């Protein structure tokens, strides 16, 4: 019996040659083996035909480079093939179901892309005179109105660039509000069921983080929270729906208690997809919540494009929101409120988080998504996302332990543990096994409150047929893990790379290519390329 380390990787996996189905090229039919670009291109060649360059007196003093730059020279065709081959080894939402929990990997409608590429949005510059970009400013303003309406809040800061940036924006608003009240509150309470970025944001903004435990059913322990409130508590950061896939049904009571104690409520809205159009966070007493346009409102995600994390604010926090923002005036024109005009129009702002007005490309896509779905369509998004997650939860809870299956329906994601697998088998083996079945793995080992977590979020994108195939695949892998199938321990077998030695990769990472060592007396590659 081969000795396994905890991650399942075996030393002989690197040896090669043992696999009798190996091909001469290393290619497997349409799956082409691809080396690094430095290993294909020679530094002796170049992909472009320059006239020989005569270099005059260097203009940069002693910063002039006189040794070879060492870049591989590939033709256009070779370069295109290289990246196309690599892209075929990737997994994407356009290929299949992407079950990454807490991350809402949904279909990106092509209409969004068409609108984002309209020259009036795509080819403008943030420093262009404002009277020449009224349409773009109108889009920012219109999207802001949608976000305020959907959340029942008072205002929105559009500039934050992603979820954690939005968290920071909300926490800075809370800090500014406390300073305006002349109070020095240093503690932010973060429940165990919150997103991992929440405590990091709180600490980064200078607060001390204290945990609030979860109840056995996976929700915030309201009594423990109440007991901790006091004059040193600035507020609470809650993820709702939380990372156990559950709706925090005590949210209103939590907000009331925090407000009564003089604190503010920050809600992590990364999971807004489950409640959009159904629940307005403003009605639950939330003071600030970021919305990931790149999750809920379907702008490219997962290798696609940048994020965008607008923050909706309550009446108490809205005066402190950041500049710049697009304001609409009585004559129908739009103007950015910047430092020059903030004194008159937005005097309590905590300042600026970004150079410009936010992620314009995300704004156009998100507004397109909203307008093409309509208010009723967005409501159906939430309903179908929750229905799909519950279908997965109830279709698999006989083979995988669902720790909070008894806590009622889940929201947008289904949570399982690795309790009950055969001795020596864990979540990692199921995640690797599902790669062989042609899926990206689910989120694993998070949240930390359960053993060997597997968090699955199908989103509303998937049809019943797609879900049934995924459920069948996961059921089959789970059963193999329960029966202790040794082949699963070294999965994936059909991926471009087999089980990797994750331990060695983490302990001794090699993050950049370096020239292989050459025998003494032979010129190195870069020396050869210097002529």
């Amino acid at each position: 019996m081969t000795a396994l380390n905890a991650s399942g990787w075996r030393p002989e996996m690197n040896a090669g040659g043992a696999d009798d189905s190996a091909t001469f090229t290393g290619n497997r039919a349409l799956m082409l083996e691809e080396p690094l670009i430095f290993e294909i291109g020679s530094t002796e060649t170049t992909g472009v035909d320059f006239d020989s360059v005569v270099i005059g007196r260097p203009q940069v003093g002693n910063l002039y480079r006189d040794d070879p730059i060492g870049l591989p020279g590939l033709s256009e065709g070779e370069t295109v093939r290289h990246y196309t081959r690599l892209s075929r080894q990737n997994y994407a939402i356009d290929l299949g179901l992407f079950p990454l929990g807490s991350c809402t990997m949904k279909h990106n409608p092509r209409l969004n892309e068409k609108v984002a590429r309209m020259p009036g949005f795509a080819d403008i510059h943030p420093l262009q005179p404002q009277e020449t970009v009224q349409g773009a400013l109108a889009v920012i303003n219109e999207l802001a109105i949608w976000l305020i309406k959907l959340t029942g809040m008072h205002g929105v800061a559009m500039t934050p660039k992603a979820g954690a940036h939005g968290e920071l924006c909300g926490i800075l608003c809370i800090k500014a509000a406390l300073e305006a009240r002349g109070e020095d509150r240093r503690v932010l309470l973060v429940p165990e069921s919150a997103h991992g970025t929440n405590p990091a944001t709180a600490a980064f903004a200078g607060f001390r983080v204290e945990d609030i435990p979860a109840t056995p059913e996976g929700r915030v322990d309201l009594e423990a929270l109440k007991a901790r409130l006091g004059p040193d508590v600035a507020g609470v950061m809650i993820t709702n729906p939380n990372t156990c896939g559950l709706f925090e049904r005590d949210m209103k009571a939590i907000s009331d208690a925090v407000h009564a104690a003089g604190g503010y409520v920050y809600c992590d809205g990364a999971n807004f997809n489950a409640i959009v159009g159904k629940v307005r966070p403003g009605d639950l007493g939330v003071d600030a919540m970021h919305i990931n346009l790149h999750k809920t409102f379907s702008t490219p995600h997962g290798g696609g494009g940048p994020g965008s994390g607008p923050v909706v604010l309550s009446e108490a926090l809205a005066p402190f929101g950041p500049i710049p923002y697009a304001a609409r005036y009585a004559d129908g024109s739009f103007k950015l409120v910047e430092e020059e005009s903030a004194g008159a129009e937005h005097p309590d702002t905590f300042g600026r988080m970004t150079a410009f007005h936010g992620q314009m490309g995300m704004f156009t896509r998100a507004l397109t998504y909203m307008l093409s779905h309509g208010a009723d369509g967005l409501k159906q998004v939430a309903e179908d996302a929750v229905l799909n997650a519950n279908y997965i939860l109830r279709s698999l809870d006989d083979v995988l332990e669902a720790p909070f299956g008894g806590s009622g329906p889940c929201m947008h994601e289904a949570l399982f543990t690795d309790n009950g697998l055969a001795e020596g088998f864990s979540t990692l083996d199921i995640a690797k096994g599902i790669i062989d079945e042609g899926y990206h793995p689910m989120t694993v080992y998070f949240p930390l409150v359960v053993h060997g977590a597997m968090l699955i979020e199908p989103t509303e994108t998937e049809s019943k047929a797609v879900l049934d195939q995924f459920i069948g695949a996961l059921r089959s892998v789970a059963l193999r893990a329960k029966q202790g199938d040794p082949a699963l321990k070294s999965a994936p077998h059909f991926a471009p790379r087999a089980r990797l030695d994750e331990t060695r990769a983490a302990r001794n990472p090699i993050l950049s290519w370096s020239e292989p060592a050459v025998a003494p007396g032979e010129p190195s590659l870069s020396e050869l390329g210097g002529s």
Partner: protein
Amino acid sequence: MPRYYTEEHEWIDVDGDVATVGITDFAQGQLGDIVFVEVPDTGAELSQGGDAAVVESVKAASDVYAPVDGVVTEGNGQLEEDPALVNSDPEGEGWFFRMTLSDKSQLDALMNATAYKAFCDDL
């Protein structure tokens, strides 16, 4: 030399006025392959239950808590070079730090080996 255990899976060996602290074999088994350890600086003041060290495995990063109040006298520098010691010898060479004991009576509330084993069996 008596050894005590916490519910957070730290062990503490007491030798006179100095104690040695690490994580238990059960803890390393749950964490999986350890890839990084951050031990506290000498002179750091620790309070019982507060953050003392960080341990990162292929699965997760976790805090190691101070089992009692005291001041760090030495961190195990070897773990920086060779974090795998925590997997191979968690309750020996894989110790995390040594500390003084400000209040020895805090030890009374910790578990002995028998009680800790029963505690783990219940998890």
